[in-house]
Protein backbone atom coordinates (compact mmCIF):
# COMPACT_ATOMS: atom_id res chain seq x y z
CA UNK A 1 0.00 0.00 0.00
CA UNK A 2 2.98 2.25 0.63
CA UNK A 3 6.33 1.69 -0.94
CA UNK A 4 9.21 4.11 -0.65
CA UNK A 5 12.65 4.01 -2.15
CA UNK A 6 15.51 6.16 -0.98
CA UNK A 7 13.32 8.96 0.34
CA UNK A 8 15.50 11.90 1.37
CA UNK A 9 15.03 15.38 2.75
CA UNK A 10 17.45 18.02 3.99
CA UNK A 11 16.75 21.35 5.60
CA UNK A 12 18.80 24.49 5.77
CA UNK A 13 19.87 25.39 9.25
CA UNK A 14 21.49 28.68 10.12
CA UNK A 15 24.12 28.62 12.78
CA UNK A 16 25.99 31.86 13.39
CA UNK A 17 25.21 33.09 9.89
CA UNK A 18 26.66 29.94 8.36
CA UNK A 19 24.08 27.99 6.44
CA UNK A 20 24.47 24.28 6.88
CA UNK A 21 22.33 21.50 5.51
CA UNK A 22 20.78 19.18 8.03
CA UNK A 23 19.82 15.79 6.68
CA UNK A 24 16.49 15.08 8.33
CA UNK A 25 15.73 11.94 6.35
CA UNK A 26 18.56 10.04 4.70
CA UNK A 27 17.21 7.47 2.32
CA UNK A 28 14.24 5.57 3.64
CA UNK A 29 13.04 2.32 2.09
CA UNK A 30 9.77 1.03 3.46
CA UNK A 31 7.01 -1.30 2.46
CA UNK A 32 3.68 -1.11 4.23
CA UNK A 33 1.14 -3.83 3.48
CA UNK A 34 -2.56 -3.24 2.98
CA UNK A 35 -4.67 -3.35 6.11
CA UNK A 36 -1.93 -3.11 8.69
CA UNK A 37 -1.14 -0.59 11.38
CA UNK A 38 2.42 0.40 10.67
CA UNK A 39 4.27 2.31 13.35
CA UNK A 40 7.22 4.59 12.91
CA UNK A 41 9.02 4.59 16.25
CA UNK A 42 11.79 6.97 17.10
CA UNK A 43 12.86 9.84 19.33
CA UNK A 44 11.92 13.44 18.64
CA UNK A 45 13.87 14.82 15.72
CA UNK A 46 14.52 11.41 14.20
CA UNK A 47 12.78 12.33 10.96
CA UNK A 48 9.40 10.70 11.61
CA UNK A 49 7.24 13.72 10.90
CA UNK A 50 9.35 14.76 7.93
CA UNK A 51 8.88 11.34 6.35
CA UNK A 52 5.18 11.38 7.07
CA UNK A 53 4.76 14.85 5.59
CA UNK A 54 6.58 13.78 2.45
CA UNK A 55 4.33 10.76 2.04
CA UNK A 56 1.26 12.94 2.62
CA UNK A 57 2.32 15.34 -0.20
CA UNK A 58 2.97 18.20 2.21
CA UNK A 59 6.70 18.33 1.67
CA UNK A 60 8.64 17.74 -1.52
CA UNK A 61 11.33 15.06 -1.13
CA UNK A 62 14.88 15.94 -2.23
CA UNK A 63 15.33 12.45 -3.62
CA UNK A 64 13.86 9.01 -3.87
CA UNK A 65 10.35 8.06 -4.83
CA UNK A 66 7.25 6.46 -3.40
CA UNK A 67 3.99 4.85 -4.38
CA UNK A 68 1.22 5.66 -1.95
CA UNK A 69 -2.13 3.89 -2.26
CA UNK A 70 -1.28 3.01 -5.85
CA UNK A 71 -0.49 6.56 -6.96
CA UNK A 72 2.95 7.98 -7.67
CA UNK A 73 3.87 10.51 -5.01
CA UNK A 74 6.03 12.68 -7.24
CA UNK A 75 4.16 12.40 -10.53
CA UNK A 76 0.62 12.65 -9.23
CA UNK A 77 0.37 14.21 -5.75
CA UNK A 78 -3.25 15.24 -6.38
CA UNK A 79 -4.29 11.63 -6.85
CA UNK A 80 -2.35 10.67 -3.72
CA UNK A 81 -4.27 13.36 -1.81
CA UNK A 82 -7.56 11.91 -2.95
CA UNK A 83 -6.64 8.48 -1.63
CA UNK A 84 -5.07 9.33 1.71
CA UNK A 85 -6.09 10.95 4.94
CA UNK A 86 -3.66 12.83 7.17
CA UNK A 87 -3.96 13.98 10.75
CA UNK A 88 -1.22 16.31 11.91
CA UNK A 89 0.24 16.20 15.39
CA UNK A 90 -1.39 19.49 16.32
CA UNK A 91 -4.71 18.65 14.71
CA UNK A 92 -6.51 21.51 13.05
CA UNK A 93 -9.98 22.87 13.60
CA UNK A 94 -11.29 26.42 13.58
CA UNK A 95 -12.45 27.63 16.97
CA UNK A 96 -15.89 29.03 16.22
CA UNK A 97 -17.37 26.17 14.23
CA UNK A 98 -18.77 22.82 15.31
CA UNK A 99 -17.37 19.39 14.54
CA UNK A 100 -20.41 18.74 12.36
CA UNK A 101 -19.69 21.83 10.27
CA UNK A 102 -16.02 20.90 10.00
CA UNK A 103 -16.87 17.37 8.86
CA UNK A 104 -19.28 18.65 6.22
CA UNK A 105 -16.74 21.17 4.92
CA UNK A 106 -14.03 18.55 4.80
CA UNK A 107 -16.31 16.23 2.81
CA UNK A 108 -17.05 19.05 0.38
CA UNK A 109 -13.35 19.71 -0.02
CA UNK A 110 -13.06 16.15 -1.24
CA UNK A 111 -15.71 16.94 -3.80
CA UNK A 112 -18.91 15.72 -2.16
CA UNK A 113 -22.04 17.73 -3.01
CA UNK A 114 -23.80 19.56 -0.19
CA UNK A 115 -26.41 16.99 0.81
CA UNK A 116 -23.96 14.12 0.55
CA UNK A 117 -21.47 16.04 2.68
CA UNK A 118 -24.13 16.59 5.32
CA UNK A 119 -24.88 12.88 5.32
CA UNK A 120 -21.17 12.00 5.59
CA UNK A 121 -20.85 14.37 8.57
CA UNK A 122 -23.84 12.75 10.26
CA UNK A 123 -22.40 9.26 9.68
CA UNK A 124 -19.01 10.32 11.08
CA UNK A 125 -20.65 11.90 14.14
CA UNK A 126 -22.27 8.58 14.84
CA UNK A 127 -19.39 6.21 14.15
CA UNK A 128 -16.86 8.25 16.12
CA UNK A 129 -19.26 8.94 18.99
CA UNK A 130 -19.22 12.71 18.59
CA UNK A 131 -22.95 13.21 19.05
CA UNK A 132 -22.75 14.41 22.65
CA UNK A 133 -20.48 17.37 21.89
CA UNK A 134 -20.18 17.63 18.11
CA UNK A 135 -22.64 20.48 17.72
CA UNK A 136 -20.78 22.74 20.11
CA UNK A 137 -17.93 24.95 18.90
CA UNK A 138 -14.58 23.23 18.59
CA UNK A 139 -12.87 25.55 21.05
CA UNK A 140 -14.88 24.00 23.88
CA UNK A 141 -13.61 20.44 23.34
CA UNK A 142 -11.30 18.47 25.62
CA UNK A 143 -8.05 17.06 24.27
CA UNK A 144 -9.54 13.62 23.73
CA UNK A 145 -12.65 14.99 22.00
CA UNK A 146 -10.53 17.17 19.75
CA UNK A 147 -8.41 14.20 18.75
CA UNK A 148 -11.47 12.17 17.83
CA UNK A 149 -12.70 14.99 15.65
CA UNK A 150 -9.27 15.29 14.00
CA UNK A 151 -9.34 11.63 13.08
CA UNK A 152 -12.96 11.74 11.91
CA UNK A 153 -11.92 14.65 9.65
CA UNK A 154 -8.97 12.67 8.34
CA UNK A 155 -11.13 9.74 7.20
CA UNK A 156 -14.29 11.56 6.08
CA UNK A 157 -13.62 10.55 2.46
CA UNK A 158 -12.86 6.92 3.36
CA UNK A 159 -9.20 6.98 2.32
CA UNK A 160 -7.29 3.78 1.71
CA UNK A 161 -4.34 4.99 3.75
CA UNK A 162 -4.46 7.10 6.90
CA UNK A 163 -1.40 8.94 8.21
CA UNK A 164 -1.39 9.79 11.89
CA UNK A 165 1.37 11.96 13.30
CA UNK A 166 1.88 11.26 17.03
CA UNK A 167 -1.83 10.58 17.47
CA UNK A 168 -1.83 10.20 21.25
CA UNK A 169 0.75 12.75 22.33
CA UNK A 170 -0.65 14.78 25.18
CA UNK A 171 -3.67 12.56 25.78
CA UNK A 172 -4.60 11.13 29.17
CA UNK A 173 -4.27 7.32 29.51
CA UNK A 174 -7.99 6.64 29.07
CA UNK A 175 -8.28 8.77 25.93
CA UNK A 176 -5.17 7.09 24.59
CA UNK A 177 -6.71 3.65 24.92
CA UNK A 178 -9.97 4.88 23.37
CA UNK A 179 -8.00 6.23 20.45
CA UNK A 180 -6.16 2.95 19.99
CA UNK A 181 -9.54 1.22 19.77
CA UNK A 182 -10.63 3.76 17.17
CA UNK A 183 -7.49 3.12 15.11
CA UNK A 184 -7.93 -0.65 15.33
CA UNK A 185 -11.55 -0.30 14.25
CA UNK A 186 -10.42 1.58 11.14
CA UNK A 187 -7.82 -1.10 10.40
CA UNK A 188 -10.43 -3.80 10.82
CA UNK A 189 -12.51 -1.93 8.26
CA UNK A 190 -9.71 -2.45 5.75
CA UNK A 191 -7.80 0.83 6.08
CA UNK A 192 -4.02 0.91 6.10
CA UNK A 193 -2.68 3.07 8.91
CA UNK A 194 0.76 4.63 9.07
CA UNK A 195 1.50 6.34 12.36
CA UNK A 196 4.45 7.87 14.10
CA UNK A 197 5.04 7.58 17.80
CA UNK A 198 7.73 7.92 20.38
CA UNK A 199 5.80 5.82 22.88
CA UNK A 200 7.19 2.28 23.23
CA UNK A 201 3.93 0.97 24.52
CA UNK A 202 1.98 2.41 21.61
CA UNK A 203 4.31 0.80 19.09
CA UNK A 204 4.19 -2.47 20.97
CA UNK A 205 0.48 -2.79 21.66
CA UNK A 206 -1.15 -0.99 18.76
CA UNK A 207 1.09 -1.60 15.77
CA UNK A 208 1.13 -4.72 13.63
CA UNK A 209 4.54 -3.86 12.31
CA UNK A 210 7.02 -1.15 13.16
CA UNK A 211 10.12 0.49 11.81
CA UNK A 212 12.56 2.06 14.22
CA UNK A 213 13.99 5.31 12.91
CA UNK A 214 16.96 7.14 14.30
CA UNK A 215 18.78 10.15 12.87
CA UNK A 216 16.91 9.96 9.61
CA UNK A 217 17.43 6.29 8.84
CA UNK A 218 15.53 3.08 9.52
CA UNK A 219 17.56 0.90 11.85
CA UNK A 220 15.13 -2.00 12.29
CA UNK A 221 11.86 -3.22 10.85
CA UNK A 222 9.46 -6.03 11.75
CA UNK A 223 6.66 -6.98 14.09
CA UNK A 224 7.30 -5.90 17.68
CA UNK A 225 7.69 -9.57 18.71
CA UNK A 226 10.16 -10.32 15.92
CA UNK A 227 12.25 -7.30 16.71
CA UNK A 228 12.45 -8.08 20.37
CA UNK A 229 13.33 -11.69 19.71
CA UNK A 230 15.89 -10.85 17.07
CA UNK A 231 17.70 -8.51 19.37
CA UNK A 232 18.04 -10.42 22.56
CA UNK A 233 15.71 -13.35 23.01
CA UNK A 234 14.06 -13.81 26.41
CA UNK A 235 15.63 -14.29 29.78
CA UNK A 236 14.41 -17.06 32.09
CA UNK A 237 15.43 -16.79 35.70
CA UNK A 238 15.20 -19.98 37.80
CA UNK A 239 15.47 -20.11 41.57
CA UNK A 240 16.77 -23.41 42.90
CA UNK A 241 16.90 -25.06 46.30
CA UNK A 242 20.53 -26.19 46.02
CA UNK A 243 22.50 -27.99 43.27
CA UNK A 244 22.92 -24.71 41.43
CA UNK A 245 26.14 -25.52 39.63
CA UNK A 246 24.90 -28.94 38.58
CA UNK A 247 21.79 -27.34 37.13
CA UNK A 248 23.95 -24.74 35.39
CA UNK A 249 26.01 -27.42 33.68
CA UNK A 250 22.92 -29.35 32.64
CA UNK A 251 21.01 -26.42 31.24
CA UNK A 252 23.97 -24.82 29.49
CA UNK A 253 24.26 -28.00 27.44
CA UNK A 254 20.65 -27.79 26.25
CA UNK A 255 20.25 -26.65 22.62
CA UNK A 256 17.48 -24.09 23.31
CA UNK A 257 19.59 -22.24 25.87
CA UNK A 258 21.63 -19.57 24.10
CA UNK A 259 23.74 -18.60 27.02
CA UNK A 260 24.09 -18.77 30.75
CA UNK A 261 23.85 -15.13 31.67
CA UNK A 262 24.36 -15.23 35.37
CA UNK A 263 24.84 -17.60 38.28
CA UNK A 264 24.27 -16.81 41.92
CA UNK A 265 24.05 -19.10 44.95
CA UNK A 266 20.46 -20.09 44.30
CA UNK A 267 19.65 -18.45 41.00
CA UNK A 268 20.42 -18.90 37.27
CA UNK A 269 19.72 -16.51 34.44
CA UNK A 270 19.34 -18.20 31.07
CA UNK A 271 19.06 -16.47 27.71
CA UNK A 272 16.71 -18.39 25.42
CA UNK A 273 15.02 -17.74 22.07
CA UNK A 274 11.42 -17.97 23.15
CA UNK A 275 10.85 -18.02 26.88
CA UNK A 276 7.32 -19.39 26.80
CA UNK A 277 8.33 -22.57 25.01
CA UNK A 278 11.65 -22.89 26.86
CA UNK A 279 10.15 -22.97 30.36
CA UNK A 280 8.53 -26.44 30.05
CA UNK A 281 11.79 -27.81 28.65
CA UNK A 282 13.76 -26.33 31.52
CA UNK A 283 11.35 -27.81 34.02
CA UNK A 284 11.64 -31.25 32.44
CA UNK A 285 15.45 -31.18 32.39
CA UNK A 286 15.68 -30.19 36.03
CA UNK A 287 12.97 -32.59 37.08
CA UNK A 288 14.53 -35.59 35.39
CA UNK A 289 17.79 -34.92 37.24
CA UNK A 290 15.98 -34.60 40.53
CA UNK A 291 16.84 -30.93 41.03
CA UNK A 292 14.24 -29.08 43.05
CA UNK A 293 12.94 -25.87 41.56
CA UNK A 294 11.91 -22.89 43.69
CA UNK A 295 10.52 -20.41 41.16
CA UNK A 296 10.66 -19.40 37.52
CA UNK A 297 10.49 -15.90 36.10
CA UNK A 298 10.35 -14.82 32.48
CA UNK A 299 11.75 -11.49 31.27
CA UNK A 300 10.83 -10.37 27.80
CA UNK A 301 12.86 -7.58 26.25
CA UNK A 302 11.07 -4.30 25.53
CA UNK A 303 11.29 -2.27 22.36
CA UNK A 304 13.62 -0.04 24.29
CA UNK A 305 16.07 -2.96 24.45
CA UNK A 306 15.72 -3.20 20.69
CA UNK A 307 16.38 0.50 20.30
CA UNK A 308 19.39 0.25 22.60
CA UNK A 309 20.81 -2.69 20.67
CA UNK A 310 20.34 -0.95 17.30
CA UNK A 311 21.49 2.55 18.17
CA UNK A 312 23.57 2.20 21.30
CA UNK A 313 21.25 4.58 23.16
CA UNK A 314 18.06 4.16 25.10
CA UNK A 315 14.98 5.68 23.53
CA UNK A 316 14.24 7.29 26.87
CA UNK A 317 17.52 9.21 26.69
CA UNK A 318 17.45 9.91 22.96
Amino acid sequence: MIQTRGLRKSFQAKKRRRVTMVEAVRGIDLTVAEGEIFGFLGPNGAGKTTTLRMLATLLAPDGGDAIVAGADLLADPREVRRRIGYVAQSGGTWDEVSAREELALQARMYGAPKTEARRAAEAAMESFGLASFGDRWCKTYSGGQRRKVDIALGVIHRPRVLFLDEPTTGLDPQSRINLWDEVKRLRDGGMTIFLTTHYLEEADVLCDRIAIIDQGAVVAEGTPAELKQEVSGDVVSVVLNGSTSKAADLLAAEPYVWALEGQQADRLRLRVGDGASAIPLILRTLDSSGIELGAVELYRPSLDDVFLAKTGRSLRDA
Partner: protein
Amino acid sequence: MTLAHDVWLVFQRQMLLVIRTPIWIVVGLAQPIIYLTLFAPMLKQALVSVGSPGTYAEAYLVYVPGLLVAISCFGGFFSGFGLLAELRAGVIERVRVTPVSRQALLLGRALREVVNMFIQALIITLLALPLGLRVPAGDLVLAYLMFILLALMAVTVSYGVALLIRNEGALGPVYNTVAQPIMLLAGVLLPIAFAPLWLKRVADWNPFYWATGAMRALFAGHPGASVVWEGAVVVVALTIVALTWSTRLFARSLR
Protein backbone atom coordinates in the same frame (compact mmCIF):
# COMPACT_ATOMS: atom_id res chain seq x y z
CA MET B 1 -13.53 20.50 -9.15
CA THR B 2 -13.03 24.02 -10.40
CA LEU B 3 -11.02 26.82 -8.86
CA ALA B 4 -14.19 28.89 -8.40
CA HIS B 5 -15.86 26.08 -6.45
CA ASP B 6 -12.84 25.74 -4.19
CA VAL B 7 -12.56 29.48 -3.63
CA TRP B 8 -16.23 29.59 -2.75
CA LEU B 9 -15.84 26.79 -0.18
CA VAL B 10 -12.94 28.52 1.53
CA PHE B 11 -14.65 31.91 1.36
CA GLN B 12 -17.86 30.55 2.90
CA ARG B 13 -16.01 29.14 5.86
CA GLN B 14 -14.10 32.37 6.34
CA MET B 15 -17.26 34.46 6.30
CA LEU B 16 -18.88 32.09 8.81
CA LEU B 17 -15.96 32.77 11.13
CA VAL B 18 -16.38 36.54 10.70
CA ILE B 19 -20.07 36.39 11.49
CA ARG B 20 -19.37 34.34 14.61
CA THR B 21 -16.86 36.82 15.97
CA PRO B 22 -19.03 39.80 16.92
CA ILE B 23 -16.11 41.92 18.06
CA TRP B 24 -14.81 42.07 14.50
CA ILE B 25 -18.15 43.29 13.25
CA VAL B 26 -18.41 45.94 15.97
CA VAL B 27 -14.89 47.21 15.33
CA GLY B 28 -15.35 46.97 11.57
CA LEU B 29 -18.47 49.14 11.70
CA ALA B 30 -17.17 51.60 14.26
CA GLN B 31 -13.93 52.30 12.40
CA PRO B 32 -15.35 54.11 9.37
CA ILE B 33 -17.74 56.15 11.51
CA ILE B 34 -14.91 57.29 13.74
CA TYR B 35 -12.69 58.19 10.80
CA LEU B 36 -15.44 60.14 9.11
CA THR B 37 -16.53 62.19 12.10
CA LEU B 38 -13.10 62.93 13.53
CA PHE B 39 -11.15 64.02 10.52
CA ALA B 40 -13.48 65.70 8.03
CA PRO B 41 -14.02 68.88 10.12
CA MET B 42 -10.26 69.43 10.24
CA LEU B 43 -9.81 68.86 6.55
CA LYS B 44 -12.57 71.35 5.79
CA GLN B 45 -10.55 74.08 7.51
CA ALA B 46 -7.29 72.97 5.95
CA LEU B 47 -8.73 73.13 2.44
CA VAL B 48 -9.67 76.80 2.90
CA SER B 49 -5.97 77.60 3.03
CA VAL B 50 -5.52 76.32 -0.54
CA GLY B 51 -8.42 78.32 -1.87
CA SER B 52 -11.31 75.93 -1.50
CA PRO B 53 -14.77 77.21 -0.55
CA GLY B 54 -14.39 75.24 2.69
CA THR B 55 -17.62 73.30 2.60
CA TYR B 56 -18.17 69.77 3.88
CA ALA B 57 -19.16 68.68 0.37
CA GLU B 58 -15.73 69.78 -0.83
CA ALA B 59 -13.96 68.17 2.10
CA TYR B 60 -15.69 64.84 1.56
CA LEU B 61 -14.79 64.77 -2.12
CA VAL B 62 -11.15 64.85 -1.05
CA TYR B 63 -11.43 62.89 2.13
CA VAL B 64 -13.74 59.97 1.30
CA PRO B 65 -11.71 58.57 -1.61
CA GLY B 66 -8.57 59.02 0.49
CA LEU B 67 -10.17 57.21 3.37
CA LEU B 68 -11.07 54.32 1.08
CA VAL B 69 -7.46 54.01 -0.02
CA ALA B 70 -6.36 54.13 3.61
CA ILE B 71 -8.76 51.34 4.52
CA SER B 72 -7.55 49.15 1.67
CA CYS B 73 -3.96 49.76 2.69
CA PHE B 74 -4.23 49.25 6.44
CA GLY B 75 -6.94 46.62 6.38
CA GLY B 76 -5.09 44.78 3.67
CA PHE B 77 -1.59 44.99 5.03
CA PHE B 78 -2.54 43.63 8.41
CA SER B 79 -4.41 40.60 7.07
CA GLY B 80 -1.25 38.49 7.14
CA PHE B 81 -1.77 38.04 10.88
CA GLY B 82 -4.87 35.97 10.24
CA LEU B 83 -3.01 33.75 7.81
CA LEU B 84 -0.23 33.12 10.32
CA ALA B 85 -2.77 32.30 13.02
CA GLU B 86 -4.39 29.71 10.78
CA LEU B 87 -1.03 28.23 9.84
CA ARG B 88 -0.25 27.89 13.51
CA ALA B 89 -3.65 26.40 14.34
CA GLY B 90 -3.02 23.67 11.78
CA VAL B 91 -6.20 24.27 9.80
CA ILE B 92 -4.28 25.15 6.66
CA GLU B 93 -2.25 21.99 6.95
CA ARG B 94 -5.45 20.02 7.34
CA VAL B 95 -7.12 21.40 4.22
CA ARG B 96 -3.91 21.23 2.24
CA VAL B 97 -3.96 17.44 2.16
CA THR B 98 -7.36 17.60 0.48
CA PRO B 99 -7.46 17.94 -3.32
CA VAL B 100 -8.63 21.57 -2.97
CA SER B 101 -6.55 23.87 -5.15
CA ARG B 102 -3.69 25.61 -3.37
CA GLN B 103 -4.57 28.93 -4.96
CA ALA B 104 -8.12 28.64 -3.66
CA LEU B 105 -6.90 28.30 -0.09
CA LEU B 106 -5.25 31.69 -0.36
CA LEU B 107 -7.78 33.37 -2.64
CA GLY B 108 -10.83 32.38 -0.62
CA ARG B 109 -9.20 33.88 2.42
CA ALA B 110 -8.16 37.03 0.58
CA LEU B 111 -11.70 37.42 -0.71
CA ARG B 112 -13.04 37.48 2.82
CA GLU B 113 -10.69 40.35 3.70
CA VAL B 114 -11.67 42.23 0.56
CA VAL B 115 -15.38 41.79 1.24
CA ASN B 116 -14.96 43.04 4.81
CA MET B 117 -13.10 46.11 3.62
CA PHE B 118 -15.64 46.69 0.88
CA ILE B 119 -18.46 46.72 3.43
CA GLN B 120 -16.55 49.40 5.36
CA ALA B 121 -16.13 51.37 2.15
CA LEU B 122 -19.86 51.14 1.48
CA ILE B 123 -20.68 52.37 4.98
CA ILE B 124 -18.36 55.34 4.61
CA THR B 125 -19.82 56.48 1.32
CA LEU B 126 -23.38 55.93 2.53
CA LEU B 127 -22.71 57.94 5.69
CA ALA B 128 -21.07 60.75 3.76
CA LEU B 129 -24.00 61.11 1.35
CA PRO B 130 -26.38 62.80 3.82
CA LEU B 131 -23.45 64.92 4.99
CA GLY B 132 -23.06 66.48 1.59
CA LEU B 133 -21.03 64.08 -0.58
CA ARG B 134 -22.21 63.96 -4.21
CA VAL B 135 -20.81 61.36 -6.62
CA PRO B 136 -22.08 60.23 -10.06
CA ALA B 137 -23.23 56.60 -9.68
CA GLY B 138 -21.22 55.25 -12.63
CA ASP B 139 -18.03 56.86 -11.37
CA LEU B 140 -18.67 55.51 -7.90
CA VAL B 141 -18.88 51.97 -9.31
CA LEU B 142 -15.55 52.48 -11.07
CA ALA B 143 -14.04 53.82 -7.86
CA TYR B 144 -15.32 50.76 -6.00
CA LEU B 145 -13.77 48.48 -8.60
CA MET B 146 -10.45 50.19 -8.09
CA PHE B 147 -10.87 49.90 -4.35
CA ILE B 148 -11.46 46.16 -4.62
CA LEU B 149 -8.33 45.64 -6.68
CA LEU B 150 -6.33 47.83 -4.33
CA ALA B 151 -7.55 45.85 -1.33
CA LEU B 152 -6.79 42.55 -3.04
CA MET B 153 -3.30 43.78 -3.83
CA ALA B 154 -2.63 44.85 -0.25
CA VAL B 155 -3.99 41.57 1.15
CA THR B 156 -1.90 39.40 -1.13
CA VAL B 157 1.24 41.45 -0.49
CA SER B 158 0.58 41.06 3.21
CA TYR B 159 0.16 37.29 2.82
CA GLY B 160 3.42 37.08 0.93
CA VAL B 161 5.28 39.05 3.60
CA ALA B 162 3.71 36.94 6.36
CA LEU B 163 4.80 33.74 4.60
CA LEU B 164 8.36 35.07 4.38
CA ILE B 165 8.58 36.35 7.94
CA ARG B 166 6.43 33.77 9.79
CA ASN B 167 6.61 35.56 13.09
CA GLU B 168 3.73 37.56 14.54
CA GLY B 169 6.04 39.55 16.78
CA ALA B 170 8.09 40.85 13.87
CA LEU B 171 5.15 41.21 11.51
CA GLY B 172 3.47 44.13 13.34
CA PRO B 173 6.46 46.48 13.18
CA VAL B 174 7.15 45.48 9.58
CA TYR B 175 3.58 46.22 8.46
CA ASN B 176 3.56 49.52 10.35
CA THR B 177 6.88 50.62 8.97
CA VAL B 178 5.68 49.96 5.45
CA ALA B 179 2.08 51.11 5.75
CA GLN B 180 2.65 54.45 7.51
CA PRO B 181 4.95 56.06 4.92
CA ILE B 182 2.88 54.61 2.10
CA MET B 183 -0.20 56.26 3.56
CA LEU B 184 1.52 59.61 4.16
CA LEU B 185 2.97 59.60 0.66
CA ALA B 186 -0.33 58.63 -0.91
CA GLY B 187 -1.86 61.89 0.30
CA VAL B 188 -4.89 60.12 1.66
CA LEU B 189 -5.42 62.42 4.62
CA LEU B 190 -3.69 65.55 3.46
CA PRO B 191 -3.46 65.97 -0.33
CA ILE B 192 0.08 65.59 -1.60
CA ALA B 193 -0.36 69.06 -3.14
CA PHE B 194 0.77 70.38 0.24
CA ALA B 195 4.10 68.58 -0.12
CA PRO B 196 7.42 70.07 -1.32
CA LEU B 197 8.59 69.06 -4.77
CA TRP B 198 11.11 66.39 -3.70
CA LEU B 199 8.45 64.64 -1.67
CA LYS B 200 6.14 64.65 -4.68
CA ARG B 201 8.85 62.92 -6.69
CA VAL B 202 9.11 60.26 -4.01
CA ALA B 203 5.34 59.85 -4.04
CA ASP B 204 5.51 59.12 -7.78
CA TRP B 205 6.88 55.71 -6.81
CA ASN B 206 4.02 54.94 -4.50
CA PRO B 207 1.22 52.94 -6.18
CA PHE B 208 -1.22 54.09 -3.51
CA TYR B 209 -0.52 57.68 -4.55
CA TRP B 210 -1.66 56.86 -8.08
CA ALA B 211 -4.70 55.07 -6.74
CA THR B 212 -5.61 58.04 -4.56
CA GLY B 213 -5.38 60.40 -7.51
CA ALA B 214 -7.58 58.18 -9.64
CA MET B 215 -10.14 57.70 -6.88
CA ARG B 216 -10.38 61.43 -6.24
CA ALA B 217 -10.86 62.13 -9.95
CA LEU B 218 -13.62 59.53 -10.09
CA PHE B 219 -15.35 60.98 -7.04
CA ALA B 220 -15.09 64.44 -8.58
CA GLY B 221 -16.83 63.11 -11.69
CA HIS B 222 -13.89 63.13 -14.10
CA PRO B 223 -13.66 59.52 -15.30
CA GLY B 224 -11.88 60.64 -18.45
CA ALA B 225 -9.01 62.31 -16.60
CA SER B 226 -5.58 60.86 -17.34
CA VAL B 227 -4.93 60.15 -13.65
CA VAL B 228 -7.78 57.65 -13.79
CA TRP B 229 -6.38 55.39 -16.43
CA GLU B 230 -2.85 55.86 -15.15
CA GLY B 231 -3.98 54.82 -11.71
CA ALA B 232 -5.94 51.91 -13.17
CA VAL B 233 -2.91 50.61 -15.06
CA VAL B 234 -0.71 50.81 -11.96
CA VAL B 235 -3.26 49.11 -9.72
CA VAL B 236 -4.22 46.35 -12.18
CA ALA B 237 -0.59 45.55 -12.97
CA LEU B 238 0.50 45.47 -9.34
CA THR B 239 -2.50 43.40 -8.29
CA ILE B 240 -1.58 40.76 -10.85
CA VAL B 241 2.04 40.79 -9.70
CA ALA B 242 1.12 40.59 -6.00
CA LEU B 243 -1.41 37.83 -6.60
CA THR B 244 1.01 35.73 -8.60
CA TRP B 245 3.82 36.26 -6.14
CA SER B 246 1.92 35.35 -3.00
CA THR B 247 0.03 32.38 -4.45
CA ARG B 248 3.31 30.98 -5.79
CA LEU B 249 5.00 31.53 -2.47
CA PHE B 250 2.11 29.86 -0.69
CA ALA B 251 2.01 26.88 -3.02
CA ARG B 252 5.77 26.47 -2.92
CA SER B 253 6.43 26.92 0.76
CA LEU B 254 3.60 24.56 1.56
CA ARG B 255 3.35 22.59 -1.67
